[in-house]
């Protein structure tokens, strides 16, 4: 009886970035503790679709397999999430897999998230400590603040918040919630704070912070529970003050 139990998958496939997507169905033998990745591996081992035809194995991204790298994000039963922590036992069947269409589809379930990394560069999501001489130790960070900042540092650039956001789409150049929250993280760091204005001015540019429409899907969808909308509201306050300083002038950095 148990041997006959199967799992059905309907997978949205796409052969090249420009070709039309199509659906392909797969029926796999059930195994206990199966997750979406192990199912995709099973299809790779035996690439035969539900009609019994031999097909090409499915292409997808993965890396850490423990929900910290963000690479294996895809749309599972309509919700963007990581496939490594999507347990088959907890999913309604047939399980529908699709790529996150907010990004360019490379092939099948594999997407190109490089726009997110470009955004991190644009908002200067780092702490500049390089110099021609040893700058010495920076200011200390209170432990309580470190613990608070750790929550923001959990972002793995997985792209789920961009996929969930109605304002991140082909008609807009909004960079999305993830890089914005990183600005809050680096501006909270005692050394990073020294370049606070640079980062705020970066997100005050086109496609930046002001594009947020407060649908708050990001905070509901973030797999790491990052307080993205709190970050956005906090940055709204910081940029209000920054805009005031820029226009009226200020002696404060």
């Amino acid at each position: 009886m148990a041997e006959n139990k199967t799992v059905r998958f309907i997978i949205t496939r796409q052969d090249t970035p420009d070709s039309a997507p199509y659906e392909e169905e797969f029926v796999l033998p059930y195994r206990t503790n199966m997750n979406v990745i192990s199912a995709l591996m099973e299809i790779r081992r035996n690439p035969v679709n539900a009609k019994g035809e031999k097909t090409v194995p499915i292409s997808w991204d993965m890396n850490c397999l423990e929900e910290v790298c963000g690479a294996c994000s895809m749309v599972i039963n309509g919700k963007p999430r990581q496939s490594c922590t999507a347990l088959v036992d907890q999913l309604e069947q047939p399980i529908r897999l699709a790529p996150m269409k907010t990004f360019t589809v490379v092939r099948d379930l594999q997407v190109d998230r490089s726009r997110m990394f470009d955004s991190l560069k644009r908002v200067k999501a780092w702490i500049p400590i390089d110099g021609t001489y040893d700058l010495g130790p920076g200011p200390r960070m209170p432990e309580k603040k470190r613990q608070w900042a750790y929550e923001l540092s959990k972002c793995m650039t997985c792209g789920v918040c961009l996929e969930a956001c109605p304002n991140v789409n082909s008609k807009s150049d909004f960079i999305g919630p993830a890089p914005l929250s990183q600005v809050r993280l680096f501006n909270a760091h005692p050394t990073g704070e020294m370049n606070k204005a640079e980062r705020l001015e970066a997100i005050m540019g086109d496609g930046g912070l002001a594009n947020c429409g407060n649908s708050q899907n990001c905070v509901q969808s973030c797999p790491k529970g990052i307080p993205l909308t709190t970050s956005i509201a906090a940055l709204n306050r910081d940029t209000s003050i920054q805009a005031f300083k820029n226009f009226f002038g200020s002696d404060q950095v």
Partner: protein
Amino acid sequence: MAGNQEFYWRRLHSLLGVIPVGLFLTQHLVVNHFATKGEQAFNDAAHFMESLPFRIFLEVFVIYLPLLFHAIYGLYIAFTAKNNTSRFGFFRNWMFMLQRISGVITLVFVAWHVWETRLAAAFGAEVNFQMMEEILGSPFMFAFYVIGVISAIFHFANGLWSFFVSWGITVTPRSQLISTYVTIGLFVVLSIIGIRALVAFI
């Protein structure tokens, strides 16, 4: 948008929606409420508003220009969104979509309402209780006015919630939740005032 001005246009859009457009909406609804006190009370109030000194300047700078900017830039914002409430049915996502829908409805309503009253006045008609009585006598126009007034009030109340977030006033989830209740209260109160005035004309 040309250059790097999007941040300032967005903030201006958010500000103008509340000051002066939202305040004008509230004032307009309150003055309309005189209709519940009878024909004479409404006509006196309308006449007082009409006879304010520098009326045309007040109208241009407090109403027409801010409203035009808010409407045109708002349409651009509304049509750059890709609504996804079917996939993400969260409360705030619904509000996000309703904000855009109510904005478009309000724009259609306000355009028609200005044509029918203020522009008619410019062409010589007198705006008084009788004029509104005639307009709202038609069940279709009455329904159109109810929908228009409700969507304008919704757009203002929910827009006020976003205004508090966009300017960094409500940051924590708790303050945003309380602001949700406060703006719902505002929606209910203004809706009662607005509908009572409309009903008074029939």
